[in-house]
């Protein structure tokens, strides 16, 4: 279980998140909903240690993560696929994938994972030697997800995986998300397409101006007046 209590975090001395409480049970998919600027992406960055946390606690299976750096958080099994995908665009698809497994370098089974992920994402296999910048938006998103999976995370944080993609590609991406979840990886997904997010998630949270304002199961959120009025 990824357990967050009273988390405040932000940039420099300015807090963007205020007293966040959030639970991600092992093996589940949790959706985080909210308008632009609500602090959703900041929350994911704070969880993985990419921005400073001013107070509160983050625990992974009972072990504290609060003061860990990004590399140690990843080592503990929490990987982020950022909103802008943050690919290394002049590098090949293969090099991007190998960088995803950077902390596992030297491990004999890394090559197996590399091949397995190219089976999961056959489009990437076709373009394995191409620079990442030459991929389409959907392929770049697939590469970003595959790269994060190279670290064998137990928790995968996805920030707007459907952003800027055609509906057909979005479906493909979410099929892959379901498949990853079925294989046992816990997922936190931020998604503007609320119907899609609540289809794949078992529970969810609504954020407004850096705080959680609503929490519940996917069904509860779907029937909530607040969610219906603002997001559906």
């Amino acid at each position: 279980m990824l357990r967050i209590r009273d988390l405040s975090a932000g940039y420099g001395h300015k807090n963007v998140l205020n007293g966040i409480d959030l639970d991600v049970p092992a093996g589940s998919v949790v959706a985080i909903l909210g308008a632009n600027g609500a602090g959703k992406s900041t929350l994911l960055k704070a969880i993985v240690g990419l921005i400073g946390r001013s107070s509160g606690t983050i625990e992974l299976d009972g072990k504290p993560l609060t003061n860990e750096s990004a590399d140690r958080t990843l080592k503990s099994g929490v990987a982020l696929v950022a909103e802008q995908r943050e690919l290394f665009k002049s590098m090949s698809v293969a090099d991007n994938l190998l960088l995803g497994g950077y902390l596992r370098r030297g491990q004999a089974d890394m090559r197996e994972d590399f091949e397995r992920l190219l089976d999961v994402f056959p489009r990437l296999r076709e373009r394995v030697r191409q620079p990442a910048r030459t991929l389409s938006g959907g392929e770049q998103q697939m590469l970003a997800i595959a790269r994060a999976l190279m670290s064998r995370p137990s928790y995968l944080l996805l920030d707007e995986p459907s952003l800027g993609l055609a509906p057909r590609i979005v479906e493909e991406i979410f099929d892959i998300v379901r498949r990853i979840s079925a294989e046992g990886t816990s997922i936190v997904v931020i998604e503007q397409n609320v119907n899609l997010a609540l289809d794949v998630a078992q529970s969810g949270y609504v954020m407004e101006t850096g705080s959680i304002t609503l929490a519940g199961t996917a069904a509860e959120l779907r029937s909530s007046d607040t969610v219906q009025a603002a997001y559906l």
Partner: protein
Amino acid sequence: MTVRLLFGAVVLVIFFAAPHFLAEFQLFQVCLIAATALVVLGIVVVTGIAGQISLAQAAFVGLGGYGPAILAARYGVPVWAGIMITAVVVGAVGYALGQLTLRVSGHYLALATMAFTAIVQLAFIHSDAVTGGAVGMQMPTLEISGKTFASGGTLYYVVLPVVGVLFLAVHNLIHSPVGRAFAAIRQSETAAAAMGIDVLAHKSAAFAASGFLGAIGGGLLGLLSTYLDPSQFGITQAVYYLAVAVVGGMQSPLGAIVGSAVFVLVPEFLQAFQTYLGLVFALLLLVFIVLRPNGLVSLASDLLRIVGGKQQRGAA
């Protein structure tokens, strides 16, 4: 594998054949190109690959020259051992300088490394008792197992293998996980951190490699010039090394060799215009920054791409 072996064999044949065809002065020039390329290789690693702007290379070169000279003069340390000891120490200094990147980046890092070069040069000038001050000091002759290496013809057999081995090491480094991490940091520090890369440690390691290569290059250049003049290790020289890297191609070890060849050989062809050499180099730098930021080596890759494209179209 076969191609690599064949390439290695050709390189070895050229290496042993060259002294039979080239004059003493030409061998000296080959050594000068190789040693300069080694210095510039340090910039390729730290700036071209890891993306950290550094104007510290002239200081590393100076330390790499003065270190073995002082160790030999004061403690009787053999020059070859002095070069190696100094390179390790300068590598550590480079690592410490890399820790600066925690606080500064971009233009400010360039200024900070420039300040480092200025401080080191001032230290050379004002430590008269140790370095000979503004007058400089003699670089001792290299001796290995009783054999003296004092001319271009003899140093050729030391400089080229050393430079060759280090180029091979850097080539392997670039294609290793650490090299990929350097390149990842250049493209996005945030994304690199998200991959679990310890960004500060890697940036410091890139500076350490740059310092090590610069110091070995400095030692070799000292052996070739036989005299250490502190005016050769200032900010102007730091910009000169950066210019060599830009003209050759910042992101490729081959660029370091090509750039060094241009900057060593052009003055030979322009002897009548010695007064204007600075202007020629400044114009070269400007032209390459604006028109071909990836340097001369990118011309070759573009050419290969065009030829490849034409062949594909022909086959279709």
